[in-house]
C-alpha cells in the first residue's frame, strides 16, 4: 500500500514504471556493446587479413571495421531505442519487427550492394574476412564478404598445404561472433530472412494463414539442417575431387550448387552489366531458390529451419552473451510466445522457472518479447543487462486496421 511507508511507494513506482532489472541503463549498454563491436571487428579483421598476408592502410582498416560496427550499432540501438520509446509512448507505433526490417534493409543496402553489381567501396579486402554470414558468393565480382561455407570447402580441399591454418581463423572469428551475439545475425541482418519476412507480410496482408507445422515436422526440419551442413561440407568436398564417379562431379562445391542465393547474385550482376550474359545459369540453385520462396510464403521462416549456416550457429548460440531470458513467476502461460514464434519454439512457453530460454533455433526476432503481455516476463539481455523487456502496454492492438462495415449493427443501445 502506498502511504504506509516510503519503501513500498518506491516499489510501486518501480513496478508501474515497468523498468526491467537492468533499469534505465539500456542505452548505455547499447553504446558499450557498440564499442565492443568496433574493437572486435577491428581486431578480428586485422588478425584475419594479417594471417592471409593482405596489406592495408590504417585508414582503410578503420573505414571498413567502422562501417561494420556502424551497422551493428544501428541494429543494437534499434533494440535499445525501441525499449525506450515504448516505455514513453504506450501506443507504440514502432514495433521491434519494423526495426528489424529497417536493419536488414540497411545491411542489404550498404554491405550487400556489391551483390547487385555496385563496385567495392574500398580497395582492401579486410571486410571480406569478417565471416559474417552474408549475401556473399564466390561468383560475385565485387564480393562484400567471404562465404564461410565456400571457405570451409576450399580449406578442406587445399588446406593441407597451409596446415589448415586458414580454416581455423575464419571459424574462430565466426564463433567469437556467435559467442558475442548468438544468432542475432539471422533476424536482424540476413538478406534471406528479409525475403522471408517480406513474403510473410504479403501473405498476412492477403489474409492467408500460414501452414501450421505439426511438432514432428518442426523436429524433422530441425534435424535436417544438421544433415545438410554435413552433406555440403564433406559432400561438397567430395563433389569436386575424384572420390566420386564422374556423373556426380561438379565444377563447384555442392554448397554453391544448391545455394539459393547464387542465382540472385548472378542475375543481378548480369543486369548490372558486371557479369557476362554467357555465364551459365545455375539451374540447381535456382530451383532451390524458387522452392525456398514458395515454401517461405506458406511456412514461416522456412529457410531458417533448414539453413546449414544456422546449424553452425545453433551449436553455440544458446550460450551466447546476448540471450533471451524468462521470468517464470510473471508468466501467465497464455501461449502467445509459442504462437507468434515464426520458428515454432515451444520451449519458452513451457519453461517454468526463471532461466535462459534462448533455443538453438531462436533467430532473435524478439517477436515473443514484443507480443508478451506481461511486464518484465521476457527480456533480451546482454551480459546480464536488460536491453529490452516485455511491457504490459505491449498489448498494442492489432497490426491491421479493420475495414468495412461493422458486423453488429449499431442498434438498440440507448443511453
Amino acid at each position, binding site marked *: *500500500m502506498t502511504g504506509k511507508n516510503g519503501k513500498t511507494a518506491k516499489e510501486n513506482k518501480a513496478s508501474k514504471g515497468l523498468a526491467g532489472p537492468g533499469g534505465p541503463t539500456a542505452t548505455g549498454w547499447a553504446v558499450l556493446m557498440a564499442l565492443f563491436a568496433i574493437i572486435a571487428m577491428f581486431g578480428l579483421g586485422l588478425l584475419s587479413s594479417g594471417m592471409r598476408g593482405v596489406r592495408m592502410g590504417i585508414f582503410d582498416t578503420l573505414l571498413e571495421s567502422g562501417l561494420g560496427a556502424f551497422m551493428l550499432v544501428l541494429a543494437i540501438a534499434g533494440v535499445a531505442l525501441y525499449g525506450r520509446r515504448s516505455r514513453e509512448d504506450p501506443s507504440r507505433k514502432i514495433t521491434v519487427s519494423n526495426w528489424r526490417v529497417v536493419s536488414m534493409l540497411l545491411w542489404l543496402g550498404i554491405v550487400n550492394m556489391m551483390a547487385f553489381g555496385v563496385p567495392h567501396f574500398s580497395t582492401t579486402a579486410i571486410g571480406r574476412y569478417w565471416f559474417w554470414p552474408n549475401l556473399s558468393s564466390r561468383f560475385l565480382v565485387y564480393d562484400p564478404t567471404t562465404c564461410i561455407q565456400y571457405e570451409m570447402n576450399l580449406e578442406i580441399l587445399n588446406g593441407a598445404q597451409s596446415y589448415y591454418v586458414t580454416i581455423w581463423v575464419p571459424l574462430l572469428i565466426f564463433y567469437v561472433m556467435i559467442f558475442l551475439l548468438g544468432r542475432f545475425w539471422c533476424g536482424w541482418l540476413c538478406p534471406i530472412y528479409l525475403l522471408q519476412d517480406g513474403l510473410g507480410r504479403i501473405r498476412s496482408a492477403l489474409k*492467408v494463414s500460414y*501452414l501450421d507445422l505439426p511438432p514432428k515436422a518442426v523436429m524433422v526440419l530441425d534435424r535436417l539442417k544438421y544433415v545438410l551442413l554435413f552433406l555440403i561440407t564433406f559432400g561438397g568436398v567430395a563433389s569436386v575431387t575424384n572420390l566420386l564417379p564422374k556423373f556426380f562431379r561438379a565444377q563447384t562445391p555442392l554448397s554453391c550448387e544448391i545455394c539459393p542465393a547464387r542465382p540472385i547474385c548472378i542475375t543481378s550482376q548480369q543486369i548490372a552489366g558486371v557479369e557476362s550474359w554467357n555465364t551459365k545459369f545455375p539451374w540447381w540453385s535456382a530451383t532451390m531458390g524458387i522452392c525456398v520462396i514458395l515454401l517461405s510464403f506458406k511456412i514461416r521462416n522456412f529457410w531458417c529451419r533448414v539453413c546449414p549456416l544456422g546449424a553452425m550457429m545453433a551449436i553455440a548460440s544458446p550460450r551466447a552473451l546476448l540471450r533471451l531470458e524468462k521470468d517464470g513467476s510473471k508468466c501467465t502461460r497464455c501461449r502467445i510466445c509459442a504462437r507468434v514464434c515464426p520458428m515454432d519454439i515451444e520451449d519458452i512457453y513451457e519453461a517454468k522457472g526463471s532461466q535462459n530460454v534462448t533455443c538453438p533455433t531462436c533467430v532473435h526476432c524478439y517477436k515473443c518479447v514484443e507480443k508478451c503481455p506481461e511486464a518484465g516476463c521476457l527480456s533480451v539481455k546482454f551480459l546480464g543487462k536488460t536491453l529490452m523487456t516485455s511491457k504490459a502496454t505491449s498489448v498494442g492492438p492489432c497490426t491491421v486496421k479493420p475495414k468495412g462495415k*461493422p458486423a453488429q*449493427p449499431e442498434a*438498440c443501445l*440507448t443511453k
Partner: protein
Amino acid sequence: MPFGKKEDPARDKVQGAPRHAGIADLKAKTPRYITPGIGDNVEFQRERTVEASKKQIHQELERMRKMPGRPKAMEYFEKVAEFFTARAEEVKLWKQQGGKVVGTLCVFIPHEIIDAAGALPLRVGSGFHEAVHPANELLADAGLCPMVKATLGCKMVEASPYFSMSDMIVSPTPCDAKMKLAEILQDYMPVLIINMPRVKSGSAVRRLWTDEIHILMDRLEELTGNRITAQSMRKSIDKYHKAHLAWRRFMELRKRGNIIWGRDALLVGQMSDIDNIERWAQNVQKLCDELEARAGKPEEFVDKDRPRILLGGSPIVWPNWKIPTLIEETGGIIAADELCSGMRIFRDPVISDESSLDSLVEAVSDKYFYPCTCPSFSPNLEREDNILNMIKEYEIEGVIYHVLRGCHLNALDSTKVDVLLKAKKMAVLKIETEYDEGDVEQIRTRIEAFFEMIFVKREFEGKEGKAAEATGEKVWGTATPVESKGSMEDQSYKAEDRVETGVTGPGEVKKEG
C-alpha cells in the same frame, strides 16, 4: 491440423453423421429431465423468484452505496447491475430489431466470436439466492453447486431476463455440474455443449479446442445468418481489446492501495459480461480518470489501513454478494480476486500477428483456454503462480478462499492453496458456504477472528520487518501495525453485539486460521 486445412467434423457430411447437425438438434426433441408436474406452478414461482431477486439486488446496491468514498462513475455500473431495468430493456429492443442473443456459461466462451457473428453475447450464470429452490425440485442431486442450481432455476421459472431472451446457450464442460446443467437445459432451449479438454499439454488438445470453437462458429453463422469474416473478427477483437486495456488500467490503479471497494471492482468486472462492451470500456476509463484525479488528495483511499484481502475460489456472481459484503463490513477490503467472475475475465489479451481468419480464431481460442486458471485444469501451475503474483503485486495480507458447497474442484484446490500459502506465511481462511443466508453470523465471526489475526500479524511482523530492514533483508508480506478500525456502524447485516476481543498471542490465533 497438420498441413493446412482445418478439419471440421460438423461440415464433414460424407463420412457419417455430423456431430451437431444444426441449431434445431441442440434442443431435446422430447424432454428427458422434465417430468410431468414440474412446471405446474411456474407463474407463482416466477413471481416469487423475481420479487426476491429484485429485493436482493436492491439490498446489495443499498449496502454498497453506504460505503464511504465511492466514485461517482459507479452510478453507471449500478444502473447496469439493476438487471431487470435499463439493460434488460436494451436487450429486449435488440431482440425486437431482429438481433440474436447468445447466452454463455463460464469464462471459456469467446465473446469476440459471438460478437463477430453479429449476435449479442451475455453471460447468464446466476447469483439469485431464490432461484435455487425451483431447481431443487428437478434435480436428483441435492449436493450440487448452488450456482448451477440457481442458473437452472432461473431458466425453469424464467426469472432472469437475459436467460429468457437467449436464442442459444453455449456451455463448456469444465466440471460435472456444468456438463449436466447443459444437458438438462437442452430440454428448455438449444444448448451447444463445447468439449473442453482439462489438461493443457499437447498439440492434440490445442486442435480439439480450436475445432470446438470452429463448431461454435458454424452454429453462430447458422443462427445469425452472418458469415464470420477476418474483418468482423478483427473488429470485435479490437473492441474487446479496448475493454481489456481499460481493465488493465483499473487494475494498475488498484495496486496503489485501497482506492476502491472490492465489491465495486467486482461489480465493474462482472458487468462486462452483460453490458455493451464498448460502452463498458468507456465507463471503466471514466472511473479510472476519476480515481486518478483523486491521487494525492485526502479522499484518495477509501480506508487506508484495512487489511487487504485476496478473494479466491468458487465464482461469486452478482447479486450473490454475501461473502464480499461480509468481508468489507467486518473491516477488511477485497484488494484483488481470483474468481472466474472477477479478474479472470480479463486475464490476458488476444494477440495475433497474423490477419487471416483462422489465425485470429486461434488467437482468440488460445486466450480463453491457455491462461485460464480454472480449478478444472490439472496440473494447475498457472493458478498457483497467479495467486502468488497477486499477493506480491497487490500487497495482500490475507487470502479468503470461498468454496460453494458442491464445487468439488475448488474445494479440492483449497488444500493445495492452503499448503502453498502457509509455506509462504500467508494467512488463509477457507469458507464453505451456500446461497442462503443462514450462516451469515457464523461466517462473520470467523472473518472477524481472521482479521484479528492479521492485525496481530502486522504487529508481530512490523517489528520483525524493521529488524530485517536494518539488516537489509526483505520480509515478504510485511505490514505496519495499525489499529483495527472497520466502519462497524455501517453494518447492514443484522449485527450482534460485538465484544472487544483483547489481542491474543500470535501462536494462539494462528491456530484459528
